[in-house]
Protein backbone atom coordinates (compact mmCIF):
# COMPACT_ATOMS: atom_id res chain seq x y z
CA UNK A 1 0.00 0.00 0.00
CA UNK A 2 1.15 3.52 -0.72
CA UNK A 3 0.86 5.47 2.50
CA UNK A 4 -0.30 9.06 2.87
CA UNK A 5 0.19 10.44 6.37
CA UNK A 6 -1.97 13.14 7.91
CA UNK A 7 -1.42 14.78 11.26
CA UNK A 8 -3.95 17.19 12.73
CA UNK A 9 -2.19 20.38 13.80
CA UNK A 10 -4.93 22.46 15.41
CA UNK A 11 -7.03 22.01 18.51
CA UNK A 12 -10.72 21.96 17.55
CA UNK A 13 -13.33 24.10 19.31
CA UNK A 14 -16.00 23.17 16.76
CA UNK A 15 -16.54 20.08 14.63
CA UNK A 16 -14.46 19.72 11.49
CA UNK A 17 -16.28 18.07 8.59
CA UNK A 18 -13.70 16.07 6.63
CA UNK A 19 -15.63 14.23 3.93
CA UNK A 20 -12.84 14.90 1.47
CA UNK A 21 -10.51 12.59 3.39
CA UNK A 22 -10.95 9.43 1.33
CA UNK A 23 -8.59 7.26 -0.74
CA UNK A 24 -10.69 8.21 -3.77
CA UNK A 25 -9.93 11.90 -3.25
CA UNK A 26 -6.24 11.40 -2.44
CA UNK A 27 -5.13 8.91 -5.08
CA UNK A 28 -3.12 10.45 -7.88
CA UNK A 29 -2.74 13.83 -6.14
CA UNK A 30 0.38 15.69 -5.04
CA UNK A 31 0.76 16.82 -1.44
CA UNK A 32 -0.02 20.40 -2.54
CA UNK A 33 -3.23 19.25 -4.23
CA UNK A 34 -4.29 17.25 -1.19
CA UNK A 35 -3.70 20.27 1.03
CA UNK A 36 -6.10 22.30 -1.15
CA UNK A 37 -9.01 19.88 -0.64
CA UNK A 38 -11.94 21.56 1.15
CA UNK A 39 -12.93 20.91 4.74
CA UNK A 40 -15.65 22.67 6.73
CA UNK A 41 -15.02 24.14 10.18
CA UNK A 42 -18.00 25.71 12.03
CA UNK A 43 -19.49 27.88 9.26
CA UNK A 44 -16.30 28.38 7.27
CA UNK A 45 -14.94 26.53 4.28
CA UNK A 46 -11.25 25.85 4.91
CA UNK A 47 -8.57 23.74 3.29
CA UNK A 48 -7.16 20.44 4.45
CA UNK A 49 -3.76 22.08 4.69
CA UNK A 50 -5.13 24.58 7.27
CA UNK A 51 -5.72 21.72 9.70
CA UNK A 52 -3.43 18.84 8.72
CA UNK A 53 0.22 18.25 7.91
CA UNK A 54 0.39 15.99 4.84
CA UNK A 55 3.04 13.73 3.44
CA UNK A 56 3.19 10.86 0.96
CA UNK A 57 1.43 10.06 -2.23
CA UNK A 58 -0.32 7.24 -4.01
CA UNK A 59 -1.48 6.43 -7.50
CA UNK A 60 -4.31 3.88 -7.38
CA UNK A 61 -7.32 4.16 -5.07
CA UNK A 62 -7.12 0.48 -4.14
CA UNK A 63 -3.49 0.89 -3.11
CA UNK A 64 -3.99 4.04 -1.03
CA UNK A 65 -3.63 3.86 2.72
CA UNK A 66 -4.30 7.04 4.69
CA UNK A 67 -2.91 7.09 8.23
CA UNK A 68 -4.13 9.94 10.42
CA UNK A 69 -2.45 10.95 13.68
CA UNK A 70 -3.72 13.26 16.42
CA UNK A 71 -7.01 13.74 18.25
CA UNK A 72 -9.83 13.28 15.73
CA UNK A 73 -12.69 13.01 18.24
CA UNK A 74 -14.40 16.07 16.73
CA UNK A 75 -13.63 15.30 13.07
CA UNK A 76 -16.72 14.12 11.21
CA UNK A 77 -17.39 12.30 7.94
CA UNK A 78 -13.94 10.81 7.33
CA UNK A 79 -14.11 8.14 4.63
CA UNK A 80 -17.49 9.25 3.33
CA UNK A 81 -18.51 7.41 0.13
CA UNK A 82 -15.08 5.81 -0.35
CA UNK A 83 -14.91 2.92 -2.80
CA UNK A 84 -11.56 1.36 -1.98
CA UNK A 85 -8.24 1.73 -0.22
CA UNK A 86 -7.69 2.01 3.53
CA UNK A 87 -7.85 4.52 6.33
CA UNK A 88 -6.22 4.03 9.71
CA UNK A 89 -7.11 6.25 12.67
CA UNK A 90 -5.27 6.06 15.98
CA UNK A 91 -7.56 8.04 18.25
CA UNK A 92 -11.26 8.52 18.90
CA UNK A 93 -13.09 9.71 15.80
CA UNK A 94 -16.12 11.93 15.26
CA UNK A 95 -19.56 11.24 13.78
CA UNK A 96 -20.35 9.65 10.43
CA UNK A 97 -17.04 7.74 10.02
CA UNK A 98 -17.18 5.67 6.82
CA UNK A 99 -20.78 6.62 5.99
CA UNK A 100 -22.00 5.47 2.59
CA UNK A 101 -18.72 3.67 1.86
CA UNK A 102 -18.93 0.90 -0.71
CA UNK A 103 -15.46 -0.61 -0.58
CA UNK A 104 -12.15 -0.55 1.17
CA UNK A 105 -11.40 -0.71 4.86
CA UNK A 106 -11.36 1.72 7.77
CA UNK A 107 -9.75 0.86 11.11
CA UNK A 108 -10.33 3.08 14.14
CA UNK A 109 -8.08 2.38 17.11
CA UNK A 110 -10.31 4.26 19.50
CA UNK A 111 -14.00 5.04 20.05
CA UNK A 112 -16.27 6.24 17.28
CA UNK A 113 -19.07 8.76 17.66
CA UNK A 114 -22.67 8.36 16.39
CA UNK A 115 -23.59 7.22 12.84
CA UNK A 116 -20.45 5.10 12.30
CA UNK A 117 -20.81 3.20 9.04
CA UNK A 118 -24.23 4.67 8.35
CA UNK A 119 -25.76 3.63 5.01
CA UNK A 120 -22.83 1.20 4.44
CA UNK A 121 -22.93 -0.24 0.93
CA UNK A 122 -19.84 -2.42 1.16
CA UNK A 123 -16.33 -2.61 2.52
CA UNK A 124 -15.27 -3.05 6.10
CA UNK A 125 -15.35 -0.78 9.14
CA UNK A 126 -13.46 -1.87 12.22
CA UNK A 127 -13.72 0.00 15.52
CA UNK A 128 -11.41 -1.14 18.28
CA UNK A 129 -13.31 0.66 20.99
CA UNK A 130 -16.95 1.59 21.59
CA UNK A 131 -19.18 3.12 18.98
CA UNK A 132 -21.98 5.61 19.42
CA UNK A 133 -25.62 5.39 18.42
CA UNK A 134 -26.92 4.41 14.97
CA UNK A 135 -24.00 2.16 13.94
CA UNK A 136 -24.61 0.91 10.40
CA UNK A 137 -27.99 2.62 10.38
CA UNK A 138 -30.09 4.39 7.79
CA UNK A 139 -30.03 8.19 7.82
CA UNK A 140 -33.16 10.17 8.72
CA UNK A 141 -35.92 9.64 6.19
CA UNK A 142 -34.31 6.65 4.45
CA UNK A 143 -36.25 3.37 4.67
CA UNK A 144 -33.26 1.27 3.61
CA UNK A 145 -29.91 1.60 5.34
CA UNK A 146 -26.89 -0.69 5.35
CA UNK A 147 -27.08 -2.98 2.33
CA UNK A 148 -23.73 -4.76 2.37
CA UNK A 149 -20.35 -4.79 4.06
CA UNK A 150 -19.12 -5.67 7.52
CA UNK A 151 -18.86 -3.59 10.66
CA UNK A 152 -16.86 -4.88 13.63
CA UNK A 153 -17.05 -3.06 16.94
CA UNK A 154 -14.94 -4.48 19.73
CA UNK A 155 -16.86 -2.72 22.46
CA UNK A 156 -20.42 -1.49 22.81
CA UNK A 157 -22.68 -0.08 20.10
CA UNK A 158 -25.26 2.57 20.92
CA UNK A 159 -29.03 2.57 20.31
CA UNK A 160 -30.74 1.65 17.04
CA UNK A 161 -27.69 0.06 15.41
CA UNK A 162 -28.43 -1.52 12.02
CA UNK A 163 -31.69 0.43 11.70
CA UNK A 164 -33.46 -0.47 8.40
CA UNK A 165 -30.65 -2.82 7.27
CA UNK A 166 -31.50 -4.60 4.04
CA UNK A 167 -29.95 -7.73 2.59
CA UNK A 168 -30.36 -9.23 -0.86
CA UNK A 169 -30.23 -12.97 -1.49
CA UNK A 170 -30.11 -12.71 -5.30
CA UNK A 171 -27.25 -10.22 -5.10
CA UNK A 172 -25.56 -12.16 -2.27
CA UNK A 173 -25.38 -9.06 -0.08
CA UNK A 174 -25.42 -9.72 3.66
CA UNK A 175 -24.87 -6.59 5.74
CA UNK A 176 -23.35 -7.78 9.01
CA UNK A 177 -22.51 -6.24 12.38
CA UNK A 178 -20.26 -7.90 14.94
CA UNK A 179 -20.10 -6.16 18.32
CA UNK A 180 -19.09 -6.72 21.92
CA UNK A 181 -22.37 -5.55 23.42
CA UNK A 182 -25.30 -3.35 22.39
CA UNK A 183 -27.63 -0.70 23.72
CA UNK A 184 -31.39 -0.81 23.08
CA UNK A 185 -33.23 -1.33 19.78
CA UNK A 186 -30.45 -3.35 18.14
CA UNK A 187 -31.56 -4.26 14.62
CA UNK A 188 -34.79 -2.26 14.70
CA UNK A 189 -36.75 -2.48 11.40
CA UNK A 190 -34.32 -5.16 10.26
CA UNK A 191 -34.90 -6.40 6.70
CA UNK A 192 -32.28 -9.14 6.48
CA UNK A 193 -29.27 -7.82 8.36
CA UNK A 194 -27.08 -10.19 10.38
CA UNK A 195 -25.92 -9.23 13.86
CA UNK A 196 -23.66 -11.19 16.21
CA UNK A 197 -23.12 -9.90 19.76
CA UNK A 198 -20.41 -11.35 21.98
CA UNK A 199 -21.96 -10.06 25.20
CA UNK A 200 -25.14 -8.48 26.52
CA UNK A 201 -27.85 -6.48 24.85
CA UNK A 202 -30.34 -3.95 26.23
CA UNK A 203 -34.12 -3.98 25.60
CA UNK A 204 -36.06 -4.25 22.35
CA UNK A 205 -33.48 -6.10 20.25
CA UNK A 206 -35.04 -7.02 16.90
CA UNK A 207 -37.86 -4.49 17.23
CA UNK A 208 -40.15 -4.65 14.18
CA UNK A 209 -37.76 -7.07 12.46
CA UNK A 210 -39.29 -8.18 9.13
CA UNK A 211 -36.65 -10.87 8.71
CA UNK A 212 -32.97 -11.34 9.57
CA UNK A 213 -30.77 -12.97 12.17
CA UNK A 214 -29.64 -11.59 15.51
CA UNK A 215 -27.37 -13.81 17.61
CA UNK A 216 -26.71 -12.82 21.24
CA UNK A 217 -24.06 -14.75 23.13
CA UNK A 218 -24.77 -12.90 26.37
CA UNK A 219 -28.08 -11.89 27.95
CA UNK A 220 -30.89 -9.53 26.97
CA UNK A 221 -32.19 -7.13 29.61
CA UNK A 222 -35.78 -7.69 28.42
CA UNK A 223 -36.99 -9.71 25.44
CA UNK A 224 -39.80 -8.18 23.37
CA UNK A 225 -43.17 -9.81 24.16
CA UNK A 226 -43.80 -10.08 20.41
CA UNK A 227 -41.04 -12.70 20.08
CA UNK A 228 -41.94 -16.37 20.54
CA UNK A 229 -39.75 -19.31 21.48
CA UNK A 230 -39.25 -21.80 18.64
CA UNK A 231 -36.86 -24.24 20.28
CA UNK A 232 -33.20 -24.85 21.10
CA UNK A 233 -30.35 -25.17 18.64
CA UNK A 234 -26.73 -26.30 18.89
CA UNK A 235 -25.48 -23.94 16.23
CA UNK A 236 -26.73 -21.04 14.14
CA UNK A 237 -26.29 -21.01 10.39
CA UNK A 238 -26.09 -17.50 9.06
CA UNK A 239 -27.13 -16.61 5.50
CA UNK A 240 -23.64 -15.32 4.71
CA UNK A 241 -22.38 -18.90 5.16
CA UNK A 242 -20.93 -18.46 8.63
CA UNK A 243 -21.79 -20.97 11.35
CA UNK A 244 -21.88 -19.97 15.02
CA UNK A 245 -21.47 -22.91 17.35
CA UNK A 246 -23.04 -23.03 20.78
CA UNK A 247 -26.35 -23.72 22.49
CA UNK A 248 -28.93 -21.04 21.75
CA UNK A 249 -32.63 -20.62 22.32
CA UNK A 250 -34.24 -19.77 19.01
CA UNK A 251 -36.99 -17.13 18.92
CA UNK A 252 -39.11 -16.04 15.98
CA UNK A 253 -40.09 -12.40 15.55
CA UNK A 254 -41.08 -9.70 15.29
CA UNK A 255 -44.68 -10.89 15.37
CA UNK A 256 -45.92 -7.33 15.23
CA UNK A 257 -45.03 -7.47 11.54
CA UNK A 258 -46.30 -10.94 10.61
CA UNK A 259 -48.21 -13.74 12.30
CA UNK A 260 -45.64 -16.21 10.89
CA UNK A 261 -42.13 -14.89 10.24
CA UNK A 262 -38.64 -15.97 9.17
CA UNK A 263 -37.08 -13.38 11.44
CA UNK A 264 -34.93 -14.96 14.12
CA UNK A 265 -33.31 -13.95 17.40
CA UNK A 266 -30.96 -16.36 19.18
CA UNK A 267 -30.03 -15.98 22.84
CA UNK A 268 -27.34 -18.12 24.45
CA UNK A 269 -28.91 -20.90 26.49
Amino acid at each position, binding site marked *: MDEIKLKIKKKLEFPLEADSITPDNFAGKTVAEIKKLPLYYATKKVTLGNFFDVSGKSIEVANTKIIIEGDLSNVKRIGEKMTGGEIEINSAVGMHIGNNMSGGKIVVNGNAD*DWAGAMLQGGELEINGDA*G*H*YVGSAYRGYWQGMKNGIIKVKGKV*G*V*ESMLWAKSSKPANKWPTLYCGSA*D*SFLGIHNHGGTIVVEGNVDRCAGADQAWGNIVIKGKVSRLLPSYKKVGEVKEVQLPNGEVIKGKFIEYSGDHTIKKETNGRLYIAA
Partner: protein
Amino acid sequence: MSLNNLILLTGRTISQGVALEGGKASRENVRAAGICTFDTDDFKKLDCIVGTPVKVITDYGEVLVYSTITEEGPHPGIIFIPMGPWANQLVNPSSQGCGTPTYKGIKAKVEVVKNGKVLGAIELIGKLKEA
Protein backbone atom coordinates in the same frame (compact mmCIF):
# COMPACT_ATOMS: atom_id res chain seq x y z
CA MET B 1 -35.89 10.02 56.56
CA SER B 2 -35.20 9.04 53.00
CA LEU B 3 -36.68 7.02 50.19
CA ASN B 4 -34.65 5.16 47.57
CA ASN B 5 -35.45 3.36 44.32
CA LEU B 6 -37.94 5.92 43.12
CA ILE B 7 -38.74 6.82 39.53
CA LEU B 8 -39.03 10.52 38.73
CA LEU B 9 -41.63 11.70 36.23
CA THR B 10 -41.99 15.34 35.14
CA GLY B 11 -44.77 17.07 33.23
CA ARG B 12 -47.38 19.79 33.07
CA THR B 13 -49.87 20.76 35.75
CA ILE B 14 -52.51 23.39 35.40
CA SER B 15 -51.14 25.32 38.41
CA GLN B 16 -47.67 25.29 36.90
CA GLY B 17 -49.15 26.57 33.64
CA VAL B 18 -50.98 29.39 35.38
CA ALA B 19 -47.88 30.26 37.37
CA LEU B 20 -45.57 30.35 34.37
CA GLU B 21 -47.89 32.75 32.61
CA GLY B 22 -48.26 34.78 35.77
CA GLY B 23 -44.56 35.37 36.19
CA LYS B 24 -41.71 32.90 36.35
CA ALA B 25 -39.94 34.96 39.01
CA SER B 26 -42.96 34.79 41.31
CA ARG B 27 -43.50 32.95 44.56
CA GLU B 28 -46.54 31.42 42.90
CA ASN B 29 -44.21 29.68 40.45
CA VAL B 30 -42.18 28.16 43.31
CA ARG B 31 -45.34 26.83 44.93
CA ALA B 32 -46.55 25.44 41.59
CA ALA B 33 -43.36 23.97 40.13
CA GLY B 34 -40.84 23.83 42.96
CA ILE B 35 -42.61 20.84 44.45
CA CYS B 36 -42.33 17.05 44.54
CA THR B 37 -45.52 15.03 44.60
CA PHE B 38 -45.53 11.72 46.45
CA ASP B 39 -47.80 8.73 46.51
CA THR B 40 -49.82 8.78 49.76
CA ASP B 41 -48.25 5.64 51.25
CA ASP B 42 -44.74 6.58 50.12
CA PHE B 43 -45.14 9.96 51.82
CA LYS B 44 -45.98 8.32 55.13
CA LYS B 45 -42.56 6.63 55.05
CA LEU B 46 -40.90 10.05 54.89
CA ASP B 47 -42.45 10.86 58.27
CA CYS B 48 -42.78 14.60 57.73
CA ILE B 49 -45.60 17.07 57.22
CA VAL B 50 -46.78 18.24 53.83
CA GLY B 51 -44.71 21.17 52.62
CA THR B 52 -41.47 20.08 54.27
CA PRO B 53 -38.57 20.74 51.92
CA VAL B 54 -37.00 17.57 50.54
CA LYS B 55 -33.82 17.03 48.58
CA VAL B 56 -34.37 15.03 45.40
CA ILE B 57 -31.23 13.38 44.00
CA THR B 58 -30.60 11.74 40.64
CA ASP B 59 -27.45 10.83 38.73
CA TYR B 60 -27.71 14.21 37.02
CA GLY B 61 -28.15 16.59 39.94
CA GLU B 62 -30.03 17.45 43.08
CA VAL B 63 -32.53 20.11 44.12
CA LEU B 64 -34.58 21.22 47.12
CA VAL B 65 -38.34 21.31 46.60
CA TYR B 66 -41.46 21.36 48.76
CA SER B 67 -43.05 17.98 49.35
CA THR B 68 -46.73 17.37 48.70
CA ILE B 69 -49.15 14.44 48.39
CA THR B 70 -50.55 13.40 45.04
CA GLU B 71 -54.10 13.78 43.82
CA GLU B 72 -53.21 11.55 40.88
CA GLY B 73 -52.39 8.33 42.65
CA PRO B 74 -51.88 5.75 43.74
CA HIS B 75 -48.43 5.59 42.19
CA PRO B 76 -46.12 3.86 44.67
CA GLY B 77 -42.48 4.23 43.78
CA ILE B 78 -43.10 7.20 41.50
CA ILE B 79 -42.51 10.86 42.32
CA PHE B 80 -43.72 13.70 40.14
CA ILE B 81 -42.16 17.15 39.76
CA PRO B 82 -43.86 19.62 37.39
CA MET B 83 -41.81 20.67 34.37
CA GLY B 84 -39.56 23.66 34.93
CA PRO B 85 -36.29 24.81 36.46
CA TRP B 86 -36.48 22.54 39.54
CA ALA B 87 -37.26 19.37 37.58
CA ASN B 88 -34.52 20.22 35.10
CA GLN B 89 -31.82 20.01 37.75
CA LEU B 90 -32.60 16.29 37.87
CA VAL B 91 -33.48 15.04 34.39
CA ASN B 92 -31.25 13.15 31.97
CA PRO B 93 -29.85 15.55 29.34
CA SER B 94 -29.02 12.65 27.02
CA SER B 95 -31.29 12.16 24.04
CA GLN B 96 -29.70 8.83 23.02
CA GLY B 97 -29.00 10.41 19.65
CA CYS B 98 -32.58 11.49 18.87
CA GLY B 99 -32.45 15.12 20.02
CA THR B 100 -34.97 15.05 22.86
CA PRO B 101 -33.65 14.70 26.43
CA THR B 102 -35.04 12.03 28.72
CA TYR B 103 -37.26 14.10 30.99
CA LYS B 104 -39.25 11.14 32.35
CA GLY B 105 -38.39 7.88 34.03
CA ILE B 106 -35.23 8.81 35.92
CA LYS B 107 -34.08 6.84 38.97
CA ALA B 108 -34.23 9.08 42.02
CA LYS B 109 -33.97 9.16 45.77
CA VAL B 110 -35.33 11.62 48.28
CA GLU B 111 -34.11 12.90 51.66
CA VAL B 112 -35.96 15.04 54.13
CA VAL B 113 -33.80 18.05 55.02
CA LYS B 114 -33.76 19.76 58.39
CA ASN B 115 -32.77 23.14 57.00
CA GLY B 116 -32.79 24.35 53.49
CA LYS B 117 -34.39 26.96 51.32
CA VAL B 118 -36.32 26.15 48.18
CA LEU B 119 -34.96 28.70 45.73
CA GLY B 120 -37.00 30.84 43.35
CA ALA B 121 -36.65 30.14 39.64
CA ILE B 122 -34.38 33.07 38.82
CA GLU B 123 -32.09 32.38 41.78
CA LEU B 124 -31.92 28.67 40.97
CA ILE B 125 -31.07 29.17 37.30
CA GLY B 126 -28.80 32.05 38.25
CA LYS B 127 -26.47 29.53 39.88
CA LEU B 128 -25.83 28.07 36.44
CA LYS B 129 -24.63 31.47 35.28
CA GLU B 130 -22.19 32.03 38.11
CA ALA B 131 -20.71 28.54 38.06
